């Protein structure tokens, strides 16, 4: 079974530029998460999708971050414009619909904003 795929693995951009991250969850997983993990901290949930609908985006900085999950499969997370404090690892995870299953994580994208 293929795992959660994320790309790119690394990205360096200047502040005020835009950037997009892509995630392909495990086939059949209805729930998809995007997390932001700042160095030395635990993952913080940015947004959670159930199929192509948003379940929770309460911690997503909506003035600069956006995410979509067209057709309930792949997802894209965008930052525009980026700030220095956005430097972090962005993790994508997916899980089955049932509320008792683990989340499977991708390897993440390390973003550096200079």
């Amino acid at each position, binding site marked *: 079974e293929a795992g959660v795929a994320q790309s790119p693995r690394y990205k360096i951009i200047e502040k005020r530029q835009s950037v997009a991250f892509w995630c392909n969850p495990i086939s059949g997983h209805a*729930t998809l998460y995007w997390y932001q993990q700042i160095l030395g901290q*635990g993952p913080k949930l940015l947004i959670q999708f159930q199929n192509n609908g948003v379940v*929770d985006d309460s911690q997503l900085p909506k003035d600069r971050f956006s995410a979509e999950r067209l057709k309930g499969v792949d997802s894209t997370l965008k930052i525009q414009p980026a700030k220095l404090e956005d430097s972090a690892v962005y993790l994508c995870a997916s899980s089955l619909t049932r509320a*008792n299953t683990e989340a499977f*994580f991708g390897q993440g994208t390390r973003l550096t904003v200079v």
Partner: protein
Amino acid sequence: AQTVTQSQPEMSVQEAETVTLSCTYDTSENNYYLFWYKQPPSRQMILVIRQEAYKQQNATENRFSVNFQKAAKSFSLKISDSQLGDTAMYFCAFLTSGNQFYFGTGTSLTVIP
């Protein structure tokens, strides 16, 4: 609101020894799930062990076991016979009935040869 607290930022253990990582959480829910995830330098989070809150029996996976104290809202991880490959960040996580994961701040474990 759910919170997960890991009070040990860093720990070390001699190879083959036993170490316990602590985790406490706060929730008003009665049915939930708890997890320990391992994050090696490769960054990929890997599930170590899970515990259903309605089960009184502590979960065990080979060298990994938990001490789940529901009333105290405590969920510690014990690693027996520590191996060099156990060196990683360990995150305690809480899963709500709405499928939302909350993570602690992590414990960096170093296994010393």
